[in-house]
């Protein structure tokens, strides 16, 4: 049993006088009875408004500051204040930390702190826990005045025990009451203190974080939260036995920064020299704009909150047309609304960066949950042929760097560029290397020199489709941009030749971009039985699953695509080295074997990336995709890979 309470219950003896220190034991070294492990997965699950995420973020940050690898995933309900103790209203956070770099949420949690028992059911459904997962459960519900609550609590305990969890009921709220009259608002720091003791985290770092986060609210608030933190440390020391597992701090790489994907997008926007982000609030994209709204001034940028998604897009297009390439950040429903203007931007060749932080779809779908369902919409969402580059971030680092790349491509290829990220990256926190930003990352000043005589506004190069773009203010470059079919002179044309030519020129730009790309790197050997192809935030989980299978001698490799339109070259050659190629995606597809119906079988619809690969690379492409509303775990993917290998008769 990994963690268990000391024999006698001494909750009442918890006092504020406990010194936080680095740890109760006074040292951050493994004790004789402790075993050094590579990683742990911890969750804090609560009702919305109890601050679970804040506590988890601080825990993740201090772990990163101790040199450990970290990945956090937020569990966010769709409502601000869902009814308390509701199964669907669970709000929380998972922190996976350890001695290696963490690239995904991992498998089942080792330890969960739960402020009520009901919020755990949603997590159980998602197989977040396994036999032996330790639950530190708020015990006050056992004695709740409402018999229904008492009954629900008792039933849940029975279920937890049946599932094989190790449950420790703990009077956390009661212990908090000594320091605050409203434990609902302070319990999170108390829990943080407990976790700091359990995992020998440096509580001084936690106190510094509290100072940094609550400093604005005044010393009183800081002091109270720090007191709760210390009380949590003391409480855990009194109540729990020494943790038999130990994650040693690592050498701190001072050149690393800790942030989530939406913050990385914001930094990317600034590092790209984009001066305007034109947006409309939409989950889970908005926090990128929140971040920018606070800091954009430092680089001379402005966030425009438009009256709707369409206006946000129109404003961005206007800004870009006038020479200042803008960015609009949205999610699937917003992308849908922007479709018509996106078609215009393609047609009239307006450089622009559109970031889609994907969520569960279609329609309003699952606003706070991850999905990769917008791939085909990004590529083919507009009526007619509207080719445009589509990039996808696979890591938090990508969120920053691909935004810079996207602006460069947008301007060099005179086109809107879509960058896809998702809810997993948006709130996932990880340490990443600090980028070395140089002047050439920023947008150059706009060209206001006279336009070259005789050059028309769409002077398409016959081979690449590329053309220089006049910017308003350039004397002699006057032209009228139009969404109507137009000639090289941007004159409205109704003839078939002009229409065909315009379509061809825009399409050629994609081929020209493709000619500048290099084949993706293969994770694993170049030859084998099975190749997994993925895109987006599943990178870490796929590679971890592949590593696991490879460690067992399986001949599995993977490639991960950053460019979806145009696709990176060389895929055909890479695929030819494997007996089977399959995609792994978080989106809906019918089973590859088809759907049984009326005694027969109807063909099923493949997953989105598989469909694209079949079209663009050809050959047989197998797929596995689901829409669970949460990130894929390495184990889930591993099981799928092993199943496929068994089909191939190589296991």
């Amino acid at each position, binding site marked *: 049993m990994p963690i268990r309470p000391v024999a006698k219950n001494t909750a009442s003896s918890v006092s504020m006088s406990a010194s936080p220190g680095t740890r109760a034991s006074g040292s951050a070294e493994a004790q004789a009875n402790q075993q050094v492990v590579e990683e742990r997965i911890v969750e804090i699950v609560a009702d919305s408004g109890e601050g679970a995420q804040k506590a988890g973020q601080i825990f993740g940050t201090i772990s990163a500051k101790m040199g450990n690898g970290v990945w956090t995933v937020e569990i966010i309900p769709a409502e601000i204040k869902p009814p308390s103790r509701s199964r669907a209203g669970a709000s929380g956070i998972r922190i996976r930390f350890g001695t290696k770099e963490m690239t995904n949420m991992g498998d089942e949690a080792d330890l969960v702190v739960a402020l009520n028992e009901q919020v755990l059911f949603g997590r159980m459904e998602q197989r977040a826990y396994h036999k032996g997962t330790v639950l530190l459960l708020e015990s006050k519900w056992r004695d709740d005045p409402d018999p229904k609550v008492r009954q629900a609590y008792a039933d849940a305990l029975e279920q937890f025990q049946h599932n094989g969890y190790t449950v420790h009921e703990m009077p956390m709220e009661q212990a908090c009451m000594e320091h605050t009259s409203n434990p609902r608002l302070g319990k999170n720091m108390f829990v943080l203190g407990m976790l700091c003791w359990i995992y020998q985290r440096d509580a001084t770092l936690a106190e510094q974080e509290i100072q940094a986060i609550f400093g604005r609210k005044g010393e009183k608030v800081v002091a109270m939260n720090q007191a709760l933190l210390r009380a949590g440390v003391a409480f855990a020391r009194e109540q729990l036995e020494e943790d038999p597992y130990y994650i040693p701090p690592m050498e701190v790489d001072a050149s690393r920064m800790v942030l989530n994907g939406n913050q990385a997008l914001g930094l990317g926007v600034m590092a790209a020299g984009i001066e305007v982000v034109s947006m409309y609030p939409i989950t889970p994209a908005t926090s990128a704009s929140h971040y920018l709204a606070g800091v954009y001034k430092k680089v001379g940028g402005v966030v425009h909150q*438009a009256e709707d998604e369409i206006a946000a897009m129109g404003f961005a297009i206007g800004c870009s047309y006038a020479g200042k390439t803008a960015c609009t950040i949205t999610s699937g429903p917003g992308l849908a609304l922007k479709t018509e203007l996106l078609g215009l931007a393609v047609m009239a060749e307006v450089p622009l960066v559109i970031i889609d932080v994907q969520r569960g779809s279609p329609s309003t779908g699952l606003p706070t949950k991850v999905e990769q369902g917008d791939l085909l919409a990004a590529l083919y969402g507009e009526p007619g042929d509207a080719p445009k580059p589509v990039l996808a971030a696979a890591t938090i680092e990508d969120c920053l760097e691909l935004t810079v790349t996207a602006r460069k491509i947008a301007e060099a290829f005179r086109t809107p560029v879509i960058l896809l990220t998702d809810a997993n990256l948006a709130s996932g926190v990880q340490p990443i290397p*600090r980028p070395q930003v140089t002047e050439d990352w920023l947008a150059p000043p706009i060209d206001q020199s006279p336009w070259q005589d005789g050059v028309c506004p769409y002077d398409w190069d016959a081979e690449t489709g590329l053309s220089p773009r006049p910017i308003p203010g350039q004397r002699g470059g006057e032209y009228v*941009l139009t969404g109507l079919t137009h000639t090289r002179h941007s004159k409205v044309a109704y003839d078939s030749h002009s229409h065909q030519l315009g379509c061809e020129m825009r399409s050629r730009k994609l081929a020209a971009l493709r000619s500048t790309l290099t084949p993706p790197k293969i994770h694993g050997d170049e030859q084998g039985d099975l190749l997994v192809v993925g895109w987006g935030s599943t990178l870490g989980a796929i590679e971890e699953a592949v590593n696991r299978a490879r460690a067992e001698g399986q001949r599995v490799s993977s490639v991960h695509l950053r460019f979806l339109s145009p696709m990176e070259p060389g895929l055909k050659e890479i695929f030819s080295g494997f007996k089977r190629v399959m995609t792994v995606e978080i989106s809906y597809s019918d089973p590859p074997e088809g759907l049984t119906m009326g005694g027969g079988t109807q063909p099923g619809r493949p997953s989105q990336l598989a469909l694209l690969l079949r079209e663009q690379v050809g050959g047989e492409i197998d797929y596995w995709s689901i829409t669970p509303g949460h990130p894929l775990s390495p184990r889930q993917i591993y099981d799928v890979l092993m199943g496929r290998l068994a089909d191939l008769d190589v296991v």
Partner: protein
Amino acid sequence: MFGLKKDWSLDVLPRYFTFEDYEGGEARWCPGCGDFGVLTAVQRICRDKQIPPEKTVCVSGIGCSSRLPHYMHTYGFHGLHGRALPIACGIKSRRPDLTVWVATGDGDCCSIGAGHWIHAIRYNMDMVVMLFDNNIYGLTKMQTSPTTRRGFRTNTHPEGAWIPHLDPTAVTLGFTNVSFVARTVDWNPPHLYATLQKASEHRGMSFVHILQRCPHFTGKVFEELQQDPALTPLLTHDDGIQLDPDVAKIFPNHQVHDPSDHGAAMQMVERDDVVPIGLFFQDQSRPCYDEFMKQGLEMATEDKLRGLEQALDHFMI
């Protein structure tokens, strides 16, 4: 020459723009269309103000009137149906040096783009918005628009439009942070010119509601107003539209109206017996979104890089 010293010669502008310098492609509106008059007025104002063509941007949505940018020899943006205003605001946002004209119609502005109309007025960015109101969808061939009079037969309401029309002047006057609202008619070019001229001098968004005839579908809807100028009383004031007295004489009814008086403007616009024309409301002191959007525009590259490093510092371990 004549023994005069050279430096006494007239100070000639390095560039002088003639009317022709603003003429773009041949206008393809129907003969007799009221849009021609508006186009001419805009070209004249550009010439009179000597705005360099390359510093002028005409933005439009979709519809007959939205073809206007094609007929100007300036930069132009012929956008999408209803979206002229967000696009124009985006253009102006980081380019305060550009002079922006917006051409929109009663369908474009008051129907499909109505949401943007409210908010663009509220943003109050510095540009002239010309609403070409011909009471009908022309380009798509005679469907009911929000300004089509009740009972008027259209292809979508063959027995006559069902519900009362909206008056864009009245509606715009009701929007928060409105700063300039005028109404004029295409059949009186001097008034049209003087109104657009006044609008172009305004700091903020000037909204000009132009009653404009569509000879094809609504050639007769303004006939009464044309034939009896008494029905279009002229709003007069020292701060209003200044009209040549000979032209003003055409209008038998003059109504003194102080354009700073919003309450009076609301009363004026609600009269159902007549259609007053002139400047209803102007307030140059209202906040302009331009001021917020141009923050950091002049920032030097080194300062940007420094700001960025500070932002990165914030996330360091």
